[in-house]
């Protein structure tokens, strides 16, 4: 299987160029005063050497505008991530649109229907499922926690388990200084790793995230830098204000990345969500996240760097109508906005839990969004003037035409999941609901789709690195 991503030739726009400029200028003002906290000595030294004003007593970094702008300029407009199987290489940036899966804390157990913590085997299974699905162009670690992995080596165990179960591009999380170990595993396997970095809003980079930027970019691996202010809680209650804060935070991380390794790839990744003030919950499925998706893509395009979104999400607790309409609205907006990177596939209640059903449902919606992006082919053959003349009025029809034979499966998305049967056939089949069918499909894939081959020597070397990391971290 090769990766078929999409292209967005005419991206949707939400903000005018003047409005983008105001967000940019406001962010520069915030980066200068108060600045951003980096809770890591080495990051502070690098930023000070690069020309920032650093208050060591408060770990506070103030960024001169000229430095921010030159670092944006240095960030490449597009870059390639190399997979160990070249068929899975991805080029991020420009018009490309790729989808990945979401990362969660728990899973809804396919057997019991109850939520529980994931084990290493669950991570392997969910990775294999994503490996088999053609709308999953790259894989984000499906789980951000493993109950039976050594706690201090969690990031390394997650990464190792994912690469043992897919050849697709994957990310490396920055947990407890996991970046160096992950880079060693990636080098052993022979692939690039997309370093995952997350600022803590407002205006803070925790130590492991700052160290992650340094370790990934120093070893020549690109990073996706995400910032997720929560409107009204860790960011202003306004969409514009949270976009501005998000922008300032991403740019601060981008400057560090460019100072460590000028020209290294950065994916500008939005993640802001409203807080629902009735409950104090993060409303990941809110339509405002969709506004954020379009604005994030526009901001990144203005900077001529690849764009990303740590969404779409849903607040629904189970696969149901809410999970589907919330995800669909956001998936369509991500696709129409031409966001280069988004992670629509799977996930309930923000980052709380995966279900097999939701993975298959979102996969279907991504295929639909992708079909839209593939657009309408307009040429002599597809316009079919000669054919229309030939068929003429009723009783003429197109069913028996070779043109139909050739074109219907190319022009029509044959849905992998949705039921298009006539009623009686659906009734005879047991009147099954979509979620039930989705679950069965996923289980079929898990029974039949093998993990990719991994050289036994490489596998042993991964085990050795994991052991070494555990010892180093005791």
């Amino acid at each position, binding site marked *: 299987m090769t990766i078929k991503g999409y292209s967005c030739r005419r991206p949707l726009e939400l903000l005018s160029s003047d409005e983008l400029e105001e967000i940019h200028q406001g962010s520069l003002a915030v980066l200068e005063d108060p600045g951003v906290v980096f809770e890591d000595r080495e990051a502070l030294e690098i930023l000070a050497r690069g020309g920032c004003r650093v208050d060591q007593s408060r770990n506070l970094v103030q960024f001169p505008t000229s430095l921010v702008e030159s670092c944006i300029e240095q960030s490449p407009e597009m870059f390639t991530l190399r997979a160990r199987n070249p068929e899975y290489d991805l080029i991020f940036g420009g018009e490309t649109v790729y989808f990945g899966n979401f990362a969660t804390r728990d899973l809804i157990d396919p057997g019991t229907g109850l939520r529980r*913590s994931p084990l290493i085997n669950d991570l392997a299974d969910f990775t294999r499922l994503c490996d088999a699905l053609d709308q999953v162009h790259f894989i984000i670690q499906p789980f951000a*926690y493993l*109950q039976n992995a050594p*706690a201090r080596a969690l990031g390394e165990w997650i990464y190792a388990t994912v690469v043992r179960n897919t050849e697709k591009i994957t990310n490396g999380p920055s947990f*407890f200084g996991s970046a160096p170990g992950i880079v060693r595993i990636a080098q052993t396997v022979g692939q690039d790793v997309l370093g995952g970095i997350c600022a*803590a809003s407002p205006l*803070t980079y*925790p130590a492991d995230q700052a160290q992650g930027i340094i370790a990934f970019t120093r070893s020549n691996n690109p990073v996706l830098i995400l910032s997720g202010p929560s409107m009204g809680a860790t960011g202003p209650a306004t969409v514009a204000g949270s976009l501005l804060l998000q922008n300032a935070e991403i740019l601060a991380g981008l400057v560090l990345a460019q100072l460590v390794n000028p020209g290294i790839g950065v994916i500008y990744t939005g993640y802001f969500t409203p807080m629902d*003030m009735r409950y104090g919950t993060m409303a990941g499925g809110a339509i405002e996240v969709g506004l954020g998706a379009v604005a994030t893509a526009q901001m990144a395009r203005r900077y001529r760097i690849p764009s990303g979104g740590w969404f779409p999400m849903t607040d629904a607790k189970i696969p149901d109508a809410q999970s589907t309409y919330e995800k669909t609205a956001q998936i369509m907006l991500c696709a129409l906005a031409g966001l280069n990177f988004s992670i629509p596939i799977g996930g309930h209640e923000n980052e709380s839990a995966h279900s097999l059903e939701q993975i298959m449902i979102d996969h279907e919606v991504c295929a639909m969004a992708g079909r839209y992006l593939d657009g309408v082919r307009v040429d002599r053959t597809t316009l079919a003037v000669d054919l229309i003349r030939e068929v003429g009025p009723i009783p003429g029809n197109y069913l028996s035409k070779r043109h139909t034979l050739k074109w219907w499966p190319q022009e029509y998305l044959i849905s992998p999941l949705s039921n298009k049967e006539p009623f009686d056939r659906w009734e005879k089949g047991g009147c099954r609901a979509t979620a039930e069918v989705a679950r069965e499909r996923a289980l079929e894939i898990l029974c039949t789709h093998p993990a990719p081959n991994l050289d036994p020597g490489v596998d042993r070397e991964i085990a050795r690195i994991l052991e070494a990391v555990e010892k180093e971290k005791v």
Partner: protein
Amino acid sequence: MNSKLIPELKEALLAYDEERVRVLAEEIAREGVQVREAIDAMVILIRGLGDQFERTEIFLPELIISAECMKAGMAILEKHLTGKGEQVSRQGTVVLGTVRGDLHDIGKTLVGTMLSVGGFAVHDLGTDVRAERFLEEAERVGADIIGASSLITTGRPSQRELLELLAASGQRQKYYIIIGGGAVTENWVSEIGADGFARSAGGAVKLCQTLLGSKFPAPLTDPVIC
């Protein structure tokens, strides 16, 4: 004695006017006769707001802003009482913090605010707090409860570390341990052997009240979930 002061104080609280709450609290303290009545009036008012929040009649910003107004007024009135050598009664003492490796502050601070307006003495250690630090502070202030928050899953090991450190130092029975935050599930509470977990800041107040009203000392065999 100005009999309008307490109604005015309540009005100022409901208008989220912190400055006015301070001015009125100062005035009540200066007169010195209605201090306890004023405290009671605020406590009843804020409990009512808490109930309204549970019924989604008011929202988080209203609740937090009124709680902060109340804290400001309360500090002035309590200072007056302790200045006169009178006791300020407390439901209990709670040491709170976000665990090592996590900088997320908001949920934990919200719990602290709700606990303090709920009548608890709260010592908030901030974020990225080491297990040893929780214990030092609990010892120093004579805490009844230690609350350890973590939003991110990578903070979980630090919550476990706190329980392990308590057990290893023979202090587990001294405090009820409650945990909270986005990383916490009911399973996790049982897995590490904490005494309780609440899904919301309002729930945390009920949790602490339940624990301190419990006949059983720490550690509990079955955690309390609110």
